[in-house]
């Protein structure tokens, strides 16, 4: 919403009270009408004078410019001009030699084709008095050539504020509401410009029938005659342009100006077209209407239409008028429609048609149901400037339905103001502050009865009134108190474990990435991940991102491929994030999918052994364990180089290498080691706190044994067997060498023995050795000589 300082001043001495334009911007922002930009317009440009076009002439060698002779009261002079929209006799602004234009350009004698230009003719935009892109500004007739153009036009400097008006301030999309707020805050007189007080014509009533009394609760249809359609006066055109709207003609401009001022949209029809009045009804499914913008709109039965007496649509209620009911150059009588429409209905239509207009934006927030008469009077007052013979006819139809909002009543407890704001206010202060904003306060406390004006449909409850008081008191004056910090802040045990886990993953060397959790419908399959439980988005941005991931693997595989394509051959990546499988339970009201937190680590150029080493490290850091079951090959993993990490029947992760077939689909080079964990489950565990054991003071003895292990006997199985066999003196059994030759695999273990009470004897070692060999033999392994 753009507001003009000059316009605000028509409601009271606002800019004087605010002193400077900058301070006015601060006040607006402090009231919650955030100023997004401040633009100074209409500052006079000394040296720009009124000049009369004497004659024009094309130059045979220059087709982009023409020669213009003008008279600025001191004889003819010649200028070159790049525009062609002026004719002899027109008055135009001339920047004389030596003028400095608003953009900083200095006007000097310039030559084109050897002929000098004694100045420059200006467009409205060049002078900062309009947005026009229609060539040189043609000034109204009657101005004296040679006069300062700004003085002659009555242009004074002004300031345009672009406001970001929040949804709860439907009143602030009009100057009236903004000025009311400012006047209340600055404590100055507030008096809106008067409506049309001129003579009223004889009764002319065009009938109005409201067929949907909920969606449309009031329509006033006023006939005005004596209309002469033409351009608006220049100062009104400038005002419209500064407010961001394009001047059309005096009738449309008057409705737009009245809307920008009062916030009430109105629509002017040619009265001849509405001889049988208006009918307001819901559209029929598929009914079409050609709108003012030239488009043909197809309606649903939730769209409200304005129809003529013959039931032919002449407009989409609250959104846009129809093409064939537009006033024309020959219109002399208009029927002005001003209505109150139910806001959410307008919003639905506007959204459905993707058609947001100045009118719909206001109706969907809620206009003042009691502001209609004033708005009509203002249209007439503004229109009378260009139509001195305007007659406003009495007898306007103005049906209302019971759904028209009425002033609401709310209760405000005085003590509640201090309780919420921390700044107590007296009943008297509350009455004064709210009173300035147009709220009527009755009672003296502790409970006040407040009548909420109809232009504030957002205010319904006590807390809304407290917000109004806070706004006008000033947020900055409400004080700052830090709540007493007697509480102990802390991360939860799970959150602390998450940080431990993340640090451990970083320590492995993996960098953290966050790919998008939305996948292409085929992506899970591409990564070899079963997607039976994958959820779909109902309204994805694009089809390629329409499925929610059930595994972190696809995202990381894509990241590997992408990194390799940019020259990082062996990226080492991790992600700790959510996956969103549907879950086994059927969806019930209020239930949610089986969302889980997962960890995935991948490294290109690394093998399964490295992935198992990651698992060993993380398991140790996190104090958790799991069986590594290589018989259960996780989908998408290398068939002979992967395992499921399980705790009994429950899977807690996968470890190994990615299936070469998957890697080929992603175009990834080399092996990819991968570890996936159900991080949420691991984080939720609370590992036993270890109890200290005294360390032995006696030396350790190592027994090294190498076995040739048959296929199917894992190193871990052998290690466990040795551990058990070596007996109570065993401190550790570790695989320290693997040797392969001719299909045979030799595994070398170091069994470390130690006693807490004595130095071990040769006999101890011999018996442990024998027991280990026997145990390995039982598994089918043979001792290597």
């Amino acid at each position, binding site marked *: 919403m753009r507001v003009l300082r000059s316009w605000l001043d028509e409601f009271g001495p606002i800019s004087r009270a605010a002193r400077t334009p900058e301070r006015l911007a601060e006040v607006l922002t402090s009231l919650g009408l955030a100023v997004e930009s401040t633009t100074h317009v209409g500052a006079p440009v000394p040296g720009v004078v009124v000049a009369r076009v004497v004659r024009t002439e094309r130059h045979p060698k220059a087709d982009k410019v023409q020669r213009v002779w003008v008279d600025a009261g001191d004889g003819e002079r010649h200028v070159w001009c790049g525009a062609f929209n002026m004719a002899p006799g027109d008055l135009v602004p001339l920047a004389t030699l030596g003028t400095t234009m608003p953009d900083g350009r200095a006007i000097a004698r310039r030559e084109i084709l050897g002929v000098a230009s004694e100045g420059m003719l200006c467009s409205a935009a060049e002078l900062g008095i309009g947005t026009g892109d229609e060539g040189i500004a043609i000034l109204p007739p009657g101005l004296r050539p040679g006069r300062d153009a700004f003085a002659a036009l009555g242009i004074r400097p002004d300031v345009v504020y672009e406001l970001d008006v929040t949804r709860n301030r439907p009143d602030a999309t009009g100057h009236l509401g903004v000025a009311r707020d400012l006047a209340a805050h600055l404590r100055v007189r507030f008096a809106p410009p008067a409506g049309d007080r001129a003579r009223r014509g004889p009764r002319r009533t065009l009938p109005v029938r409201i067929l949907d009394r909920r969606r449309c609760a009031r329509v006033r249809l006023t006939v005005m005659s004596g209309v002469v359609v033409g351009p608006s006066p220049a100062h009104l055109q400038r005002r419209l342009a500064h407010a961001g709207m394009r001047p059309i003609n005096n009738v449309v401009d008057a409705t737009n100006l009245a809307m920008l001022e009062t916030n009430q949209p109105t629509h002017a029809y040619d009265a001849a077209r509405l001889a049988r009045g208006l009918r307001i009804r819901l559209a029929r499914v598929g009914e079409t209407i050609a709108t003012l913008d030239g488009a043909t709109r197809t309606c649903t039965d939730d769209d409200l239409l304005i129809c003529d007496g013959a039931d032919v649509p002449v407009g989409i209620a609250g959104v846009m008028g129809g093409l064939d009911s537009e006033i024309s150059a020959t219109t002399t009588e208009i029927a002005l429609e001003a209505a109150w429409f139910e806001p959410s209905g307008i919003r639905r239509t506007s959204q459905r048609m993707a058609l947001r207009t100045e009118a719909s934006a206001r109706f969907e927030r809620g206009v003042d149901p009691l502001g209609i008469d004033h708005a009509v009077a203002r249209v007439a007052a503004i229109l009378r400037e260009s139509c001195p013979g305007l007659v406003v006819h009495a007898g306007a139809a103005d049906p209302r339905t019971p759904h028209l909002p009425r002033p609401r009543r709310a209760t405000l407890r005085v003590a509640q103001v201090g309780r919420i704001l921390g700044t107590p206010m007296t009943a008297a202060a509350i009455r004064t502050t709210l009173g300035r904003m147009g709220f009527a306060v009755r009672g003296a406390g502790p409970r006040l009865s407040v009548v909420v004006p109809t232009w504030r449909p957002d205010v319904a409850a006590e807390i809304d009134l407290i917000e109004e008081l806070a706004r006008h008191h000033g947020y900055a004056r409400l004080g*700052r108190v830090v709540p007493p910090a007697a509480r102990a802040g802390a991360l939860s045990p799970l959150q602390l474990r998450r940080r431990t886990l993340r640090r451990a993953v970083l320590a492995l060397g993996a960098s953290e990435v966050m790919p998008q959790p939305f996948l292409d419908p085929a992506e899970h399959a591409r990564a070899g991940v079963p997607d039976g439980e994958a959820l779909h988005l109902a309204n994805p941005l694009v089809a390629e991102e329409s499925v929610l991931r059930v595994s972190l693997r696809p995202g990381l595989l894509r990241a590997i491929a992408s990194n390799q394509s940019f020259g990082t051959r062996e990226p080492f990546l991790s992600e700790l994030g959510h996956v969103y499988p549907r879950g086994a339970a059927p969806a019930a009201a209020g239930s949610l999918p089986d969302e889980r937190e997962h960890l995935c680590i991948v490294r290109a150029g690394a093998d399964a052994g490295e992935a198992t080493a990651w698992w060993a490290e993380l398991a140790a850091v996190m104090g958790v364990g799991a069986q590594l079951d290589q018989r259960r090959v996780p989908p998408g993993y290398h068939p002979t180089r992967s395992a499921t990490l399980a705790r009994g029947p429950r899977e807690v992760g996968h470890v190994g290498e990615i299936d070469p077939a998957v890697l080929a689909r992603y175009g990834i080079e080399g092996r990819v080691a991968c570890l996936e964990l159900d991080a949420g489950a691991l984080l939720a565990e609370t590992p036993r706190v270890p109890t200290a054991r005294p360390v032995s003071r006696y030396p350790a003895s190592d027994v090294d044994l190498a076995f040739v292990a048959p296929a199917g006997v894992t190193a871990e199985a052998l290690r466990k067997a040795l551990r058990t066999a070596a007996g109570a003196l065993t401190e550790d059994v570790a695989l320290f060498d693997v040797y392969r030759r001719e299909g045979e695999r030799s595994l070398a273990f170091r069994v470390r023995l130690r006693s807490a009470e004595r130095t071990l004897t040769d006999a101890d070692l011999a018996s442990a050795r024998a027991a280990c060999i026997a145990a390995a033999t039982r598994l089918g392994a043979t001792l290597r000589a």
Partner: protein
Amino acid sequence: MAPVHPLVEEVRAALEAGRAAIAAAADPDALRRAAAEHAGKRSAIAGLKARLGAVTDPEARKEAGRAIHEAGAALDALAAAREAELGAADVARRVAGEAMDLTEHLGARRTGHAHVVTQAWERLEDVFVGMGFRVAEGPEIETDEMNFTALNMPPSHPARSEFDTMFVEYGEPGSTLLRTHTSPVQIRVMREWDLPIYAVMPGRVFRRDTPDATHMPVFHQIEGLVVDRDVTFAHLAGTIEAFTKAFFGSDFTSRLRPSYFPFTEPSAEFDIRRADGEWIELGGCGMVHPAVLRAGGIDPERWSGFAFGFGIDRMAKERHGIDDLRDMYSGDVRFARQF
């Protein structure tokens, strides 16, 4: 003065010969041989000791005995000193031979890089924990009820359309969605935690936004919720100010200006001012709306509260001067490596 006994003269000669031999020993073996020859059991000095009995004059015998003892001790000391000298030289030689260029290492293993969002997230958590807050979490897929209705946005509330919600095909159409803000966690905390509540809720949120330099469909927010007896707007302003100084630095300050959110009232935007005087919009805040307290099962007549929230990604963006948010989510290690 009595003449020097000839035996003493011999001792002196033997000492000199031993000293020369020990000094001349160039390696540990030579030293061992020299020490044995000149100070050992079969050395000249040992031989002189055996002849001591033949000296008849008690004074002379005493003098010769002392000379023999002193010479033996001197040669032992010389041998020890020479041994230490040779040892040091040996170490020096070995050290000189193993010189190494310490810049010669081949790409040692490096710790990975935490995501910039994670870094900002944890820094924010730490500041709030220091201010007495606990950290709450909630699911990223939420019900429409938790994401909107409980936050004072019943169905058909106009503000809903501003959230560009992505809905999930689960349960009744429109019932399940990717949370558009972390605010539903407020409701969960109000329903599940004991009062009073001092909580912050960092998390991942979703909007149906086409990715560009300043928007991502997936991003992160942190919000705070305080519910206690007699909590006022002044406590909100005080907490925002305390956070601003703790997180950004003591030369930063904050301000609140009126705004609108359905779930708070009075509502405010909060801006922070840098030392250079420039104001930066940071986030939204306000007193928890009574309807939201009620939705959380809390009696707004007995308790009051405030809430605030802002984007985590933007913190990372500002801190590191990241021009394009998409870079943060590209998964490119060349980007991750920088932080």
